[in-house]
């Protein structure tokens, strides 16, 4: 790859008892790309991004991010380094207002004076500025997903990890989401776990396929589509 590498993982491993959830994965993310992570259910996708974000400690392997070894760094410090993770199962602070949810993400960057303005800007970006005073738990499901993404964006991450962001969204919402993600690159790098192949093929610059905790293939959408091993394992070809 000619592009600068933002993140490189080598030999990343995490077993749960006998289950090899992530098994010696080598993985590279180029600066500014939109990279999709796909694979059948139970392939280890969520565990893998859990290792990258620090939610799950790695048993073996190394992770370098922006030129720094972060393998032993706890999750909250990785966030400060620029890795943002949005949850697969929406985990907004349901009893706080939309504003407070996003403000929590913004204020950690130490922007005391501009807190209100930057919070509104982050909400504006996902089109939720009209909901600022609403209690997050009363939002529709689609809006909660958007709020989750707004919180990720408000961290101003170098790498935004989105775990199944379009799950449960209506078609119109998915289109809006695609435009939003397209607008993030190349300033931010996006790693996307996604089951919706339409979204993956439209958005991703590169795709990595996981199967049984191992990398089955990495390449452009065209290469992945043509890959026989992928077809056999995943696309049901």
């Amino acid at each position: 790859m000619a592009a600068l590498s933002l993140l490189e993982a080598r030999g990343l491993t995490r077993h749960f008892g006998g289950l090899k959830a992530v098994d010696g994965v080598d993985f590279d993310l180029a600066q500014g790309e939109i990279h999709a992570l796909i694979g059948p259910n139970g392939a280890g996708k969520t565990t893998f991004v859990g290792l990258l974000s620090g939610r799950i400690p790695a048993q073996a392997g190394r992770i370098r991010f922006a030129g720094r070894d972060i393998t032993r760094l706890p999750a909250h410090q990785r966030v400060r380094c620029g890795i943002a993770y949005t949850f697969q199962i929406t985990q907004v602070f349901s009893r706080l207002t939309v504003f407070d949810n996003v403000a929590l993400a913004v204020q950690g960057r130490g922007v005391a004076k501009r807190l209100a303005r930057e919070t509104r800007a982050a909400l504006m970006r996902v089109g939720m500025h009209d909901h600022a005073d609403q209690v997050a738990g009363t939002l529709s499901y689609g809006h909660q997903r958007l709020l989750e993404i707004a919180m990720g964006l408000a961290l101003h991450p170098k790498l935004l990890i989105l775990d199944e962001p379009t799950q449960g969204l209506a078609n119109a919402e998915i289109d809006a989401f695609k435009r939003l993600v397209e607008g993030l690159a190349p300033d931010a790098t996006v790693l996307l776990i996604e089951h919706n192949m339409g979204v993956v093929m439209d958005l991703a610059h590169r795709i990595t396929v996981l199967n049984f905790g191992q990398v089955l293939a990495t390449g452009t959408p065209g290469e992945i589509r043509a890959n026989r091993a992928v077809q056999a394992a995943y696309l049901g070809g």
Partner: protein
Amino acid sequence: MTVRIDTALALHLGLIALLLALHFAAPDYHHANLAKIMVLAVYAMGYNIAYGYTGLLSLGHALFFAAGLYGAAMAITVGGVPAGPALIAGMAAGGIVAAAVGLLALRTTGVAFMIVTLMFAQAGYLTILYLGQWTRGDEGIVIAQGLRHIGALDLTDEGPRYLAALALFTAGLLVNLWLVRSPFGRVMVAMRENEDRARMLGYNPFQVKLVALAISGLYAGAAGAAYAVMFGYVGASLASVQYSILPLLWVLLGGAGTVAGPFLGVLVMFYLIYYAGTLTSATLLVVGVALVALVLFAPKGILGAVRERLLKWLP
């Protein structure tokens, strides 16, 4: 937004003004009660910062209260320090003990945290009895009247004592209000609501909870120190498990996670016991029934219910 903030501040200043007016208007007996209630309310506010805002259900706050009591009393009787600096010493003792306990206890969460804090407080209680040579154990320390004054302010006298209690209460209430509306207050609430999510926004749960617990300890210490100097008596019974449970009940009654709730909780509980006492000797039965009613009809406490139904913006 600005209108709202002013209303909340005005409401709490109104409470302080009302208490100041009662200094002149309240009958002697209630005047004396209110002074004690305000001091205990500061203790309850501290508990609320840990439990109501940060979600730390501690059963060991008596230890921090006792650190304030003994920190101030022993500074006076053993150390020969004047009452003013002794108050500061007691407050600091509460904060330091809370931080030290937190360093260990905050490695646990939930039920384990409750048990560990309870055990620390029991160990503290037994230590007070064990070190009877200095703490005078069960018998307790009586601070001589002549030592209980700050400058010209004689705290053995009802009037100055009430005003000193009001000053402490005012400081506690306003700092509390400021804290919970500050960015750090928002992070405390985030820990209560969803620690895992807060971590993924870049906050270290251990650090945030430790700071919250230390602030809580400063409040408990300040209340303990004020109690010692104002009422002149410090005994091991004030470090017993009862004094860990009481702030929890006060906060639940008044409304966990509300600024004025702890005061309301102490006030209502105090007068509930008082009026129950005029009716029957089984006062605790009345208190128990009241608590059951609370859980059934207003599980979020008095101010919690008010906030839910009427004043959604109440901090």
